[in-house]
């Protein structure tokens, strides 16, 4: 049976950028232009989870993203790797939301999309790391959710999910439709094929403003927040590392052992 899937993706500044380039200016994270936006790492895993199901049983994947000023080549990666449609909630009014306003807008858009068996989300965004939106979408839609999925199979209107727990995993069966929130372990997102990239280049995303999904701008983004960001800051950290040196690197290794014994650490 073909499975209708929606994958929520977020465009974020590359989280792998070196820590030194992250600078807070006037309560906002500012990054130099060489730090390129990417699709969040856990959303990439979510996309891969959906693609694996499409491979196995067939189905349709709609990628859904919320933000403003999307870099088309970045967000269209979802199409290039195999998603069938891309819906962008793109407007200034969607900016600077919290988990509540984001989940509310996504859930409202998902109702408008209408048909879905599985909504895939990543476990947490790679910028704010809150880990709430997927569960929020499930609560608003009134459907079940399984978190920390590392493997998903679908049959007979149900999904079988391997959910990571601290000392292993559980196999959980959930009735569909459901939200499935993905962690690592599902496998890296596949590379786009040349054919995929060319097809994606020709495809235009559907763009919805707040009014297109029946929301007032006052209900979205910063205006729709329930929690207030009072301050963003970077704690000052002074480095006090004692670098052990030697004639050779191996000698430095041996001297480190001596130094740690002296300091009674080991």
């Amino acid at each position, binding site marked *: 049976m073909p499975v209708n899937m929606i994958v929520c993706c977020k465009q974020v500044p590359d989280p792998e950028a070196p820590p030194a380039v992250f600078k807070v200016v006037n309560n906002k994270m500012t990054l130099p232009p060489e730090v390129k936006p990417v699709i969040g790492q856990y959303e990439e895993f979510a996309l891969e989870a959906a693609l694996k199901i499409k491979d196995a049983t067939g189905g349709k994947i709609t990628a859904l993203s919320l933000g403003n000023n999307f870099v088309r080549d970045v967000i269209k990666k979802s199409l290039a790797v195999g998603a069938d449609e891309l819906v962008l909630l793109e407007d200034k009014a969607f900016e600077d939301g919290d988990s509540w306003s984001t989940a509310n807008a996504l859930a409202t858009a998902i109702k408008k999309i209408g048909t879905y068996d599985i909504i895939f989300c990543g476990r947490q965004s790679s910028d704010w790391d809150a880990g*709430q939106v997927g569960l929020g979408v499930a609560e608003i839609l009134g459907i079940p959710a399984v978190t920390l999925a590392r493997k998903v199979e679908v049959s007979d209107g149900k999904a*079988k999910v391997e959910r990571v727990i601290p000392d292993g*995993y559980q196999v959980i069966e959930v009735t569909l439709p459901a939200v499935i929130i993905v962690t690592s*372990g599902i496998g890296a997102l596949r590379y786009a094929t040349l054919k995929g990239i060319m097809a994606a280049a020709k495809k235009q995303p559907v763009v919805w403003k707040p009014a297109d999904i029946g929301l007032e701008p006052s209900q979205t983004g910063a205006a729709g927040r329930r929690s*207030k960001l009072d301050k963003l800051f970077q704690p000052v950290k002074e*480095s006090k590392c004692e670098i052990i040196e030697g004639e050779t690197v191996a000698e*430095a290794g041996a001297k480190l052992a001596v130094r740690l014994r002296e300091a009674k650490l*080991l």
Partner: protein
Amino acid sequence: MAEYKGVLVCGELADGKLASITTELLGCGRKLADELKEHLSCLLASDAVGEASKEAIASGADKVYVVEHPTLKEYQADSYMQVAEKLAKDVSPRVILIGQTSVGRDLAPRLAFRLGTSVTTDCLNLSIDAATKLLVQTRPVYGGNAQAVFTSESMPQIVTVRAKAMSPLERDASRKGEVIPTKIDIDTSKVRTKILETVKEEAVGIKLEDAPVIVSGGRGMGGPQPFQTILKQLADLLHGAVGASRPPADNGWVPEHLHIGLTGKIVAPDVYIAVAISGASQHTAGCSGSKHIIAINKDPEANIFREAEFGVVGKYEEVLPAFTNKLKELLAG
């Protein structure tokens, strides 16, 4: 409108005992409640709560709501949520504290959305604003590259708290408190998930969370093999455990339960030896509570040297054998 008062801790049990995260939450909750001059209560829900309720009082709670039901033996969101939602509505606390654990991560956002309020996850610091009485919530963002301070006027104010971020109180068996057995009907027909199987994958030997010494490898290890040889030899010598940063876990070089970091385990050993780990904030979020961090990395600019107390710049293939051999000699002597 209901009046919101007091602090409620959503407790967890581990092997029938009060989990360490719960004693930490009670320690933090006690301070907040005292500052508010209000009471601290604790919810314990399981198939059998037993002595843990008394432990919660010894750890700082004024009231412990004990909910026992066979379906609460293992955490399932749809059954736990019925308990948490009902109790939150009945007790009507100003603040709800939940652990940033496997259970808390899953439960807290659901509870917040169900109650129509907000939650701030993974808090490191909490205090009460004297003027507004609001909970001031500090948490890391951008993979640990910054911290954000939040407040919320929607009640109850829910937060999850990172493990080991707060200190438990000194256990005091003479503390007075009230255990309140609470009956909450759980409608099992509303449980939309079924646990088919629970599989333990934990490696034999010392658990990461309990190990006094951790030898951890990163992307620079280059593959799975060094984790089983060169890192394991050093860990064995020091009666410690082997860990990893995220890339080795993502690449399948090590099982996920060895992953230390923001989205893995949070550890705080006496000595943490980071080998070929660049020290992304995402990783240091999981190990910065260690008493002493030692770094071995070929890149002198690697961020891990900003976290470490001692370091050697060089390829681990050359540094580590010499280090391990010398240490063996010193420990034998």
